[in-house]
């Protein structure tokens, strides 16, 4: 890793472990994971099912705390932060995209996209205006009053991407974003991430089982059984 990268570290993980209590047993799912991500990287995470990818993603996204180890975002030690501060960080710096889209079924596309801004405290009118603009940007401007169940999977994922982007986060975490889509539509979504990475310099981490998707990322993390087994720069 060169010096310019290390000066520009967005994420730093040191010896991250995660245990779950399952009945009487404690099961270690992450067994000591260390890596760094520079600002502006496009990163794929692959690994067998159950290897702990989503668990890692939840920790990266501040939805969960590690059992041990240190995690810093932009130099700030996350272990020191209380719940409202974590919520604020999630709201301002992180955008999530899920395999199952996870749009709120009772809200239309525009209201779904506006939600992060409303939690940020923006006036509803402004939040809605920015949501509309973001829907235009992902090519869903004409569907802003449609509810999720009136949209196709690919359309829903576009709206979900708009929701992840509307707050202008520095980090996008996508957990199998193309997993529920056919390959053509999946590639369209992937291209949105590529464009975002290229044009805005947003850091993007994509969990995927699809080698074709992973191949488009500059860097690949491979996990097995709670450990990073490969930690290499692809293609470049």
């Amino acid at each position, binding site marked *: 890793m060169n010096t310019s990268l290390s000066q520009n570290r967005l994420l730093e993980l040191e010896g991250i472990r995660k245990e779950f209590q399952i009945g009487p047993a404690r099961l270690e799912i992450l067994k000591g994971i260390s890596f760094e991500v520079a600002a502006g990287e496009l990163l794929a995470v692959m690994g067998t099912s159950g290897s702990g990818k*989503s668990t890692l993603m939840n920790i990266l996204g501040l939805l969960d705390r590690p059992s041990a180890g240190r995690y810093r975002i932009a130099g700030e030690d996350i272990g020191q932060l209380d719940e409202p501060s974590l919520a604020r960080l*999630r709201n301002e710096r992180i955008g999530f995209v899920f395999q199952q889209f*996870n749009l709120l079924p009772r809200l239309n596309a525009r209201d779904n996209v506006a939600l992060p801004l409303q*939690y940020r405290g923006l006036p*509803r009118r402004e939040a809605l205006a920015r949501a509309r603009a973001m829907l235009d940007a992902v090519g869903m401007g004409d569907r802003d009053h449609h509810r999720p169940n009136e949209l196709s999977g690919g359309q829903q994922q576009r709206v979900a991407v708009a*929701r992840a982007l509307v707050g202008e986060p520095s980090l996008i975490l996508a957990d199998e974003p193309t997993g529920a889509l056919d390959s053509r539509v999946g590639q369209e979504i992937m291209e949105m991430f590529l464009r975002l990475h290229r044009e805005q310099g947003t850091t993007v981490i994509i969990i995927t089982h699809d080698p074709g998707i992973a191949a488009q990322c500059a860097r690949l993390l491979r996990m097995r059984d709670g450990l990073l087994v490969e930690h290499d720069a692809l293609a470049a």
Partner: protein
Amino acid sequence: MSIWANILEAMRNLLATKQRSILALIGIIIGTGSVVAMLSIGGMVRHETLKRFEDMGTDLISIRLRAPEPDQGLGVSDLAQVEQGLAPWFAVVTPSIEAGVWFELGGQEQFFTQLGSTANMQALYRLELAAGRFISPFDHYQRFAVVGQQVANAYADAGQLLAPGSTLAIDGRIYSVIGLLERAPEDLFGGTDVNHSLIIPIGALSRLDGGEIDSLAARIKPGLAHQASIEQAGQWFAQHFPGLDAEFSSPEQMIAQMQQQLRLLTLMLGAIGSISLVVGGVGVMNIMLVSVTERRREIGVRLAIGARRRDVRRQFLIEAVILALIGGLLGLVLGALAAWVVAYFAGWGFFVTLPVLLLGFGVSAAIGVFFGFYPAIQASKVDPIIALRS
């Protein structure tokens, strides 16, 4: 997220589960309805009673006299002493002796009262004359009669138009008519109806019937506290006429009595109201808990995009309060309707006051907060990881 955005969302979520929401609200509807009906009916009774006293004045006092032992009663000769003795509290005092009589007039059985009184009576009861004059202090033992409206009507029906100067034969006595009364308001103390009476100088009647005075009517002096004056006057009686039972009635007492009679209704509505409100509250709690379970994934998503736990808690609490308020609103309508029905059949003027409405609203909001709190806490404790995995 602003409170308005929260409210908007809450409405949207509730609308999505209309039927279930309405069912859960029946308890709150009935509860708030009962509270509103109870308070409205109480208010109307009070207003209605006060209104009746308005014509007569709320300073009017009635004193029923009863002497358990013979010869202990108040006689006409004691009047001067009584008037003087009660003067510190009462501005005008007028006695009455009543002698009822059934007799036949134009083929109809009639019941009239010969009411022995004094000239003061006219002012005290605010009686209006249709013709002639009222009895005067100078009439002493004269068999004069001032005729109540219903009596005059009965005579007119029997073909005899009464006028000052006419003579009447009642109960074997001859009276000469000196005046005719306009319709008088009914006696609020439940005493004799002036409209069915002949008012006769008390001297004349006591001489005929040897009567003891049945009751006194009086007006409390302006500016005096009613209840205290009544108590002191009662003490005066106990001191000077120990053998006499003097029972005071005041408009306040009458109102209290009427409200006492309504106590059963009030208690019943109160009991129904509070039970229903608790049932309704549990209904709200139940529906909110179901909602939390159903919307776990939604909560997980909200947390992921930056909602704080207290945002989630607030959202569910607002939803519970709005749910309860909708019930409260329907309850207000129901309660007002019930009060209207009661007013309609009782012949009262219907009204609902703002404080009652606000209270009904407040009660339902409080129920929403109280019973919505636990589900809201549950919602805020949802683990986003588990919620999003499912």
